[in-house]
């Protein structure tokens, strides 16, 4: 489920206009390869929530795999983005409603003549997806709610992967591994003295390192959220929505 190295982690020179979903929306009028790769990148990150949703809706693993492949193949190859719906501001909502539309109207017709060979533009490890789905705890939430939960998980995983990659590139993989708990932990559970001993640094340096890590994490998180909304004003709202989804 790992995505390839992303470009979302650009610095202050990055303009929101290059965030993936806004590029896709803007290019809805044209067949730019940039939009194509932006959409593919988005789908590569967020396909598991769709798979889980389809399974949760009652489809068998085999059907769910076919469905997921077929859906993404259509999405990426047919550019079905030509509706003037102003609510297309969020990629998450767009993907879910597209999927529902697909399930309701097209799947029955298509399943008899599915092409096989899968979607060429994405690498979907569907067997792994099924294992992952299997491991999940029983949950009374509706499929929609569950979708949002998985979405939040996919988002976080993507962000953490980017963060880890950055530290690895800087030769600080060990530092990341040691400090990553501080992203969620309060100070008491992660005493800096312990970390300092482990890494051979003094406490003040640990403090600075932790601060930098958390700050960079927040930046990447916001960048990734911005990737999936069309409008910077929606970013905060999207974060809150996902938080509510996880808590509920």
């Amino acid at each position, binding site marked *: 489920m790992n995505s390839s190295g992303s470009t979302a982690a650009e610095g*202050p*020179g*990055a*303009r*929101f*206009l290059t965030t993936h979903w*806004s*590029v896709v*929306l*803007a*290019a*809805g*009028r*044209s*067949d730019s390869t940039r939009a194509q790769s932006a959409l593919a990148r988005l789908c590569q990150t967020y396909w598991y929530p769709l798979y889980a949703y389809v399974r949760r809706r009652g489809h068998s693993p085999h059907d769910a795999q076919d469905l997921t492949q077929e859906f993404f193949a259509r999405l990426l190859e047919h550019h079905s*983005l*030509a509706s*003037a719906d102003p609510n297309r501001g969020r990629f998450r909502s767009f993907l879910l409603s597209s999927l529902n539309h697909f399930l309701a109207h097209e799947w029955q017709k298509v399943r008899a003549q599915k092409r096989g060979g899968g979607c060429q533009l994405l690498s979907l490890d569907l067997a792994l997806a099924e294992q*992952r789905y299997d*491991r*999940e*705890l029983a949950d009374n939430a509706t499929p929609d709610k569950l979708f949002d939960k998985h979405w*939040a*998980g996919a988002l*976080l*995983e993507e962000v*953490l992967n980017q963060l*880890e990659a950055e530290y690895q590139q800087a030769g600080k993989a060990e530092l990341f591994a040691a400090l*990553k*708990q501080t*992203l*969620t*932990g*309060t100070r008491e*559970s*992660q005493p800096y003295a312990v970390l300092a001993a482990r890494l051979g640094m003094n406490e003040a340096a640990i403090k600075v390192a932790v*601060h*930098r890590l*958390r*700050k*960079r*994490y*927040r*930046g*990447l998180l*916001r*960048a990734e959220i*911005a990737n999936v909304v*069309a*409008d*910077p*004003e929606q*970013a*905060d709202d999207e*974060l*809150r929505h*996902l*938080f509510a989804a*996880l*808590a509920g």
Partner: protein
Amino acid sequence: MDTMPLCPSCNRPLPPNAPKGLCPECLLKAGLQTDAQPGAGDPAQPKPPPFVPPRPEELARHFPQLEILELIGRGGMGAVYKARQPSLDRLVALKILPPGVAGGAGFAERFTREARALARLSHPNIVAVYDFGQAAGMPFFVMEYVDGPNLRELERGGKLNPREAMQIIPQICQALQFAHDEGIVHRDIKPENILLDKKGRVKIADFGIAKLVGQAVSDAALTGAGDVVGTLHYMAPEQVEKPLAVDHRADIFSLGVVFYELLTGELPLGKFAPPSQMAQVDVRLDEVVVRALQKEPARRYQHVSDLGTDVQNITAAGSANPPLLSQPPAPAMPPAPPPEETSDCRILPAFLLAFIFGIFGAHRFYVGKTGTAFLQLFTFGGLGIWATVDWILIVCRAFKDKKGRRIAKWT
């Protein structure tokens, strides 16, 4: 059963697929926090708080020369208030931009330059700028107040048909051409920025503001300062790539999108169908729209006035029907054919004459000379009746003109 690992922070069980083994809820919560030490030279900028427009009472302090009446719009870039200038006893619109916009080197200079350029745009179809400045860190404009809806509101209410669209477009073209001749590109043409006043005149708002705010937004990386992205649908492709290096032809593209949306109700996305296939519009308009929506600026109309001329020619050529707006026609439209006028003084003598002969004929008839009397009676009586009826029609039409409605259907 295995014991689940717990999150050290919230003590809840960690879900099996937790990202990197960390509690997703705590992760997101950490993501929502703002930084304790802003501006440490770190690539991850803190997000400024979202812009909340001040209440009219709060604004009044900063604008002693105005009477702030009410907030009439927000979003876009900032907020707009209806206000009154007691000195001139007129209504104005006060537009303020969010404080975050005004930071950065050289902003004040750019702002002044831009505002002065806008002040040169004196045109009946462009919202006039009366004054500008900065108050309490907020850049502001005092502008002409337009009492009427914008195109978006009209579209939503379903109040526009293709023919009305054809009358609006040439006005927009005139305004844009005027601005382009002054070297000013709007950069943000969209239905929300096109207003219509009570007389049905088009007024274009927010000229050049996109450039001012756009620069500021790009300086501040990801911020919540305004939804410039909301206009993505209307942006020319070259404008999406390099927002600040476009020329007047970007406006032509945006106008094409607006035009298409007016005609069909949809946005031209992907491989869009030509307007004539989606609505009852003249097929010749397809070419106009397609040419405006060319991705390559060099392949579009090079002057917006050419677009307006083409639209007007199509309108004139295709008007087999009389003009249908119940509002008075826009200035750019050719005048409606005048209603038939017959002067009363032509009818009245004929009426009197016929009446007299009719009486004469009747008299003769009764007296006994029936032959010619009949003829006279019927001829002149008939003439008299016709004249009377015609006279009544004239009177009724005159009444209609005063009230603007017809008295009866058959007039």
